[in-house]
């Protein structure tokens, strides 16, 4: 059982990693890190600030794009290409397929982030000529970014389990945007009453909440991150991804693969 999940995961990884689109996106992200160096040179004081802000934002945004575009294809593409039929004609459970796909994609994203992060650190070293203790905060920011990826991944997979690639991309992207403003949504819920309040609050807890994950600006100003926040965010990502994956498994279990 576990062996099959692992095999599916490594196969997903291999297939994703060889897709040229991936390399283009990584290259672009690295390019942005390079650009950050140039932009920073406009004003000496904020050089480092710009590199960190722009670099990490690039990692975050490109990662989200990768997560969405590879994620949506995970199930839809397999149905289109009928590879799914040959896989499911073997003693593979449907849920193993979903879980395996998730881990494969997660692995791909972690590796991507690693390479893109190298770009950021390289740019940083170029402008600062040394690393300071506070730069370790960047790793925390990257960790949070990876957690965001995992959440988006699980959502992509969820949508991919029942809708077409295009719609899945739209939904996943929409949820990413809404998730960035989820905190405002909850604030708005606090200002309403009655049924509206229940509905809006429900929605606010259902969408992914990314506000707590974005520490890019604060670590750019070398502000420390509370250890409790790291713990909370990790748990949140774990539970949210589990929720989305459970949904994906549930849907996929009952889907007629026409």
């Amino acid at each position: 059982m576990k062996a099959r999940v692992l095999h599916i995961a490594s196969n997903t990884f291999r297939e994703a990693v060889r897709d040229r689109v991936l390399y283009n996106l990584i290259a672009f992200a690295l390019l942005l890190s390079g650009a950050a160096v140039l932009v920073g040179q406009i004003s000496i004081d904020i050089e480092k600030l710009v590199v960190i802000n722009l670099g990490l934002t690039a990692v975050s945004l490109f990662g989200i794009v990768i997560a969405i575009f590879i994620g949506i294809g995970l199930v839809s593409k397999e149905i289109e290409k009928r590879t799914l039929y040959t896989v499911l004609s073997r003693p593979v459970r449907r849920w193993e397929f979903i879980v395996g796909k998730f881990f494969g994609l997660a692995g791909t994203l972690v590796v991507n982030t690693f390479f893109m992060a190298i770009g950021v650190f390289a740019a940083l070293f170029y402008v600062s000529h040394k690393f300071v203790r506070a730069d370790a905060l960047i790793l925390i920011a990257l960790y949070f970014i990876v957690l965001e990826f995992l959440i988006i991944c699980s959502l992509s997979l969820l949508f991919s389990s029942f809708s077409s690639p295009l719609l899945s991309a739209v939904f996943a992207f929409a949820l990413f945007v809404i998730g960035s403003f989820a905190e405002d949504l909850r604030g708005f819920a606090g200002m309403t009453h009655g049924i509206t309040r229940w509905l809006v609050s429900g929605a606010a807890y259902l969408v992914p909440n990314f506000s707590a994950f974005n520490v890019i600006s604060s670590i750019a100003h070398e502000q420390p991150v509370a250890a409790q926040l790291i713990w909370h965010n990790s748990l949140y990502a774990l539970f949210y991804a589990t929720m989305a994956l459970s949904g994906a498994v549930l849907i996929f279990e009952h889907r007629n693969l026409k």
Partner: protein
Amino acid sequence: MNQRRKVSIIAGVCLVFSLAASAVILHRTDELRPQATIEEVLFLSSPKVLKRASLGYDGLLADIYWTRAVQYFGGRHFQNARSYNLLFPLLEITTQLDPHLVVAYEFGASFLAPPPPNGAGQPEHAIQLMEYGIQNNPDNWKLYYNLGFVYYMNLKNYQKAADAFERGSKVPDTHPFMRLLAAQMAQHAGDFDTARMMWSATYQNSQDTLIRANAVEHLRALRVEEDVTRLQQAVTRFGERTGRLPTSMSELVSAEGLPGVPVDPDRHPYKLTPEGRVEVRVPDDFPFATKGLPPGFTPQPKFHSQDQ
């Protein structure tokens, strides 16, 4: 078929459980970082940059910042905060993104100018905001009204207030009382009636809950001040006549021929202390009153009728 059902049940349970868990964690995380969003929001420095970055969706972004401004103020006010440093930047960003969001200017007039804990204590910023609003909405009389309001209420600069009301009275479709207010400033600026007129105007012409609640509280306080002043004068007259203080409110009422036991806006009778002071029964209910309070009493700045 059993397999499918088993998997479905497990997946279903997992889904519900993790949804609940994620909601709980989210709640806890919120408590960890109460104002974090607002602070990091403003790391994005100038409003002009934000406007560029908003890719043309300024309206939506303005609404979001407006919501944040209201939350910021409301939340801190509830906690009796003594500083509201971020209120002006938030309102500034909001109005830069959407210069026609009139309610934001009104909010600034009501809450930027008054001293803490009822406001940010930054009347100059309030003036700045109103002038910006007038610049972008020259035909909206409300902005002139709010400008005059700030000059009158917080800066006590009746001349400038009159000027503002005068400017506003010339705007097409202006409210008839603008001319009236301009005239009042000249002679009766310090009167209760003028103040009452202003707060009533604010109340009637705004839809925002907080602004209205604030206006109501001020009106109530005005009533109390009027009543207490009147009653205190009666006590003085009584003292001049009889050479002593009245022993009770009812004695004062019958002696001075007052039309019945005086009651405050909550219909509680005013009380008369042995030292001859007229006080309200429940001082907490009148956060803006300056008279009729026990000595040394500091009001809790809560809007009386607010349900939070």
